[in-house]
């Protein structure tokens, strides 16, 4: 310790400054620790993936039979490169992306609108409940032949498949959110003189947002599955088409290459939904 500090008593505001500095330092240290933890998680994920790919590559390098049956990371990368160069990768991803997005949007808008408006009438929701459950239990793939008869072999049938995969889930999650609103909260709105529509708009809809977004995250995958199943049935382009064609020609690495593009598409769409959620519900970050 230096001499001047020992002999001159510190002024009170200097002490306060010092305390504030210490608090800031603690906060910074805390933040650093959290960043380190996140970095460690990501590093482990990368290591895990690398180990898996290395094992896969190793198993297929010396054995033609295994390489044919399972493909290999290097062959998959090779196919990705050629597909990127000839443009089919971008074209197929774009087509499937559009089908998925449109199905996702239409299915969620319809499902959420119905789900939320069912809050209005306990009677109507009781009447239609068994029908919703029945529709929800139909495997969408079983509908594919009919959908193609109704909507043709073009884009519309894929969007329809994607929409159908989404709509019931969106309906159920948003309805669950709407009826889950605290009864006391509704009573409070009533004592403030709110009409049923005001209760709906100012309380029920925003209170259901969390459930609606949970549904959105879930249905990104469903919308993609719907689009790809639609493409399996009949199509001339799209990732599902690429997977189906490569599979029937026994070009396994190409199947995997198209799958990689499919996964990337799902990740990007999920990421966007998460960003929109944060944007629309800023208060949730604070809790």
């Amino acid at each position, binding site marked *: 310790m230096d001499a001047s500090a020992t002999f001159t008593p510190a002024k009170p505001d200097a002490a306060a400054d010092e305390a504030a500095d210490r608090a800031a330092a603690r906060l910074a240290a805390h933040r650093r620790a959290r960043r380190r933890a996140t970095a460690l998680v990501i590093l482990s994920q990368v290591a895990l993936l690398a180990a898996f790919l290395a094992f896969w590559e190793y198993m297929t390098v010396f054995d033609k039979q295994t390489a044919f049956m399972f493909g290999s990371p290097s062959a998959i990368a090779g196919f990705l490169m050629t597909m990127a160069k000839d443009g089919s990768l971008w074209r197929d991803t774009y087509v499937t992306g559009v089908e998925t997005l449109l199905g996702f949007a239409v299915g969620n808008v319809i499902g959420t609108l119905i789900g939320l408006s069912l809050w209005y009438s306990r009677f109507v929701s009781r009447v239609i409940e068994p029908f919703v459950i029945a529709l929800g239990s139909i495997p969408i793939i079983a509908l594919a032949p009919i959908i193609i008869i109704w909507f043709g072999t073009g884009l519309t049938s894929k969007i329809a498949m994607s929409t159908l995969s989404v709509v019931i889930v969106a309906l159920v999650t948003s309805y669950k959110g709407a009826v889950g609103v605290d009864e006391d909260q509704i009573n409070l709105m009533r*004592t403030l003189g709110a009409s049923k529509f005001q209760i709906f708009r100012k309380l029920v809809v925003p209170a259901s947002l969390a459930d609606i977004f949970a549904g959105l995250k879930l249905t990104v995958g469903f919308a993609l599955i719907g689009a790809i199943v639609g493409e399996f049935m009949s199509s001339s382009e799209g990732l599902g088409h690429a997977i189906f064609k490569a599979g029937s020609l026994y070009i396994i690495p190409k199947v995997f290459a198209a799958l990689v593009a499919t996964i990337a598409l799902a990740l990007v769409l999920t990421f966007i939904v998460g960003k929109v959620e944060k944007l629309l519900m800023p208060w949730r970050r604070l809790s």
Partner: protein
Amino acid sequence: MNAVDTPAIAAGAVGMAPAGTPPLVVEHVAKSYDADGRIVPVIGDLSLTLNEGEIVAIVGPSGCGKTTLLNTLCGLIGADSGRIRWHGREISGQPSGVGYMLQKDLLLPWRTALRNVMLGLEIRGVSLSDAEERSHVVLDKLGLHGFAEHYPTTLSGGMRQRVALARTLVNEPDVLLLDEPFAALDFQTKLLIESDTARLVRESRRSVLLITHDIEEAVSIADRVIVLTKRPTRVKAVYDIALGTERTDMIAARESAGFVDYVRRIWADLDVTRQ
């Protein structure tokens, strides 16, 4: 803008009742619940009057039907029999000019403190700038200046309950129905918020019906304490509280001469040990 939103006109509507008509008169109200086909009488036969500018506290054993009574009074559930008159008139549905507050603050998490306070004004169609200004005034009065833009999750329990109180008071209700609003707060916060409530309510001569488990709270804040019996509940005893102090300072009230005596007598009435 709707004419009812102007306080002067709203007060005029109230004035249509003959002068001296109590804001709330309850006569022989009874209420039962149907629990799995079994009829459970909750409110036996209850009468009470709330006069203008009066604070009445209701205490009673747990589960005796206090919340049920409050919900019946503000029209959220219907009574089986009896009459409830607001300003001399029987009303179906929600009475206007009544503020309602519970132990849960029921703040909307997606609204800032200010926007939570504005809720009632918004519902009644008050213009945004007007509603904002009035809400700021009430928040300031409750010591929340500078917290208007905070979301509820970033406020302490005491502050949240103050925001809830502001949300109730900004509508300028003639009558406040409060259901254990301070029960979840720590002792110091409770004393402060009780004092603020008493001050704001008494300076504008609003009437309050306060349900509480806290006998000391009841005696220190109220002009009258009504003790209820177990289910099916009825009035067991009524105490007019005369403490001889300024009735907006909860600490002075608790230190006054008669305080302990009232608390002891009400305690005995509630018969806690033999429930």
